[in-house]
């Protein structure tokens, strides 16, 4: 074995690997919240499901078809648990918000890896 043949062994950077795993987890969390909240609030919380009047081309409201069956009547408003929060805001925003906070805590406690970031370099070292 000569000096020329000796190469440093390369492994995937563990910070990159762990960060990528956490990144995927968080994007899935965002997607789940988005799907639930947008669907619930749009269907349960709107007086009218009219299309966007200023949309260029057909609006997304038109693409999903008429949803007039979901139009709310103003008198149908309830406020769960006497908190004074409209029902659609309570179940569409506040409940998933609480769930998301709980998941965030669990993520930080059990999923997040405390990687060592103290690689080479100091602030202001370049150029």
């Amino acid at each position, binding site marked *: 074995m000569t000096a020329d043949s000796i*190469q*440093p*062994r390369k492994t995937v950077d563990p910070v990159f690997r762990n960060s990528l795993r956490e990144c995927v987890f968080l994007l899935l969390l965002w997607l789940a919240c988005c799907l639930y909240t947008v669907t619930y609030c*749009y269907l349960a919380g709107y007086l009218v499901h009219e299309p966007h*009047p200023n949309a260029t081309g057909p609006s*997304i409201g038109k693409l999903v078809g008429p949803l007039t069956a979901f139009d709310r009547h103003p008198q149908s408003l309830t406020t769960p648990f006497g908190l004074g929060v409209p029902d659609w805001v309570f179940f569409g925003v506040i409940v998933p918000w609480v769930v998301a906070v709980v998941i965030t805590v669990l993520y930080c406690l059990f999923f997040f890896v405390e990687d060592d970031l103290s690689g080479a370099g100091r602030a202001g070292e370049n150029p």
Partner: protein
Amino acid sequence: MTETSPATIITFVAYIACVFVLAGLSHRLLATKSFLGEYFLGSRGLGSWALAFTFAATAASGGSFTGFPSLIYSYGWVLAFWIASYMVAGVCSMGVLGKRLNQVARKTGAITIPDVLRDRYDSTALALFATSTIIFFTVCNLIAQFKAGALIIEETFNLPADWGYSAGLIIFAVTVVFYTAYGGFRAVVWTDVLQGIVMVLGITLLLPVVLRQGGGMESINRKLRDRPPTLVTSVPGAYNDLVIQARGQLDTAGLIYRHPQRANAPLEIRWDPGVGAEQRFIEVFLATDGDGQPTTTGNDVKGAIEQHPRLGPRFRVSFPYDNNEIVTDRFGQSTERGATGIVGLDGARGTERFVFLRGDEVLFGPGRSARGEPFHPLGMAISFFFMWAITGMGQPGTMLRLMAFKDSRTLKRAILTVTGFYSMIYLPLVFILVAARVLIPELNAENSDKAMVLVATRVVGDMGLAYQILGAVLVAAPFAAVMSTVDSFLLMISSGLVRDIYQRTINPRVSDRTVKRASYATTVIVGILVTLLATRPPDFLQRIIVFTGSGFAATFLCPIMLGLYWKGMTRQGALSAMVGGFVVMVGFFLPTLFGGSRIDLLGFHPNLWGLIVSFGLGFLVSKRTGPAPAHLVDRYFYKLSSPQPSHSTEDGRQSRVGGSA
């Protein structure tokens, strides 16, 4: 109008003094450390509290306490849906990029976002484009933020309308530019912590007070629902707006101001009972002078409607909150100001149309503007879920903070703190401003930007000394939010000019002393320029803030995110992504410069299209121009361990240059 109490003014001034003290302490620390790293990045030593508060306070800008409250005041509960992605914004905007960006920045010694791009893609062109884009969007944003700061001072100190804004602007500019230039990043972070605490404290204390004054949320909702249909006009010019309420059953869709398009026309009111209620409008043909310019005041319109035999019994006409004041002249004579201003109607445009809004409309989506347009249709709802959580990741101001924390544990604790911070700020704000609609009479669109400050100074200020002090803290909260964003943005422009353009591109051998002087000077000069631009500010701050935030994300998120996580991302791909995202954002907003509407293709906000185009181009162009240079891939994605007698890598690729670890 209620006078601002001495307690409010003293507390407010004490807060400003605290900010100056922190700047002074930071400046002393600056003298003991490497200037550039300390001045622009705090020597990468932020702890979890500092990181959390500087991150959250920078994100919670003037928009959070002026634009956002204005929208809640105007559209009601649908803003809870509009802001809903903040449920994951903290964890996403810090967690997705934080650890990896911090590691990469340490590896290369980067202290700005253009630094990161320059090193990751080995491209000066990318860095220069990034710097130019940062300066462009940041200046736009700063104009809106300076307006917010000036409005807060004007309202807090009850400054007269004719010169109050200018005085507020100068006071705000001098304060924020001085402490930012003098103290640098560390001062900005320390004041962010102070400002973050003030924000949370202010909101937490304000919520129960407002709910109690409104009789509880149930009662507030009931009052909103039972309010008669109301129309609030908002046309160019001051003190000309009116509030029109239906006295009984509403049989009219709204009001149209019409320019008669001829000289010496008299004021004329038309209302046609022959058409259906949904098409029936009160048509006001404005009186004009010999040049065809309108001469009708709001008071004239009020009188004409009240004296109209059919309309008088149907409608009650009053003034928006800010017009409804008593003016005392120099002889001590007091008169109600009312709508003494000319109804400013552009003759070329010809008409302004307003509709009646039912009370219950603010309890549901989609919300309607005074001109009858739906506020939050489906395409916007989807777009705005991207806006705060995903777009939030792509902000250079917050990314910079992710390069400055100490270690992973700091990031983890900061994520938890920021998540709590956002929850304690944004949902309570919705409650407070929905209640404000009951507690403060109608505000027109122009003055609704003051809704939060009015709640803090008027609603709370009338309740005795203890509450006056609370009011002062509450006024400081929005002021703190504005300052915490402005200081960060000022530093970002300064770092772009001094570090990215001058030091790393033009003159790498520049002395520390010159860098120091240039940094101070650019911060001050940029502050002065923005102050001048903010003397003629745009309406609706939130629109500017949304434009710049979306522009940043469309330009920066793809090259940074894919650069950190995808080995195949090339220099050409990154440049295409940045240019594509930037062009889409500016192009889709361009019509607004010429009085038109923003382009909402398929009903989606340009923000979404900017991200789609940027990521699409980044991926496709990289695929076509790849693979990325091996030495960059090795440096950013691999770790070298002890020498092994082999030519091949773990994944079978060959490399030319080893990376650092």
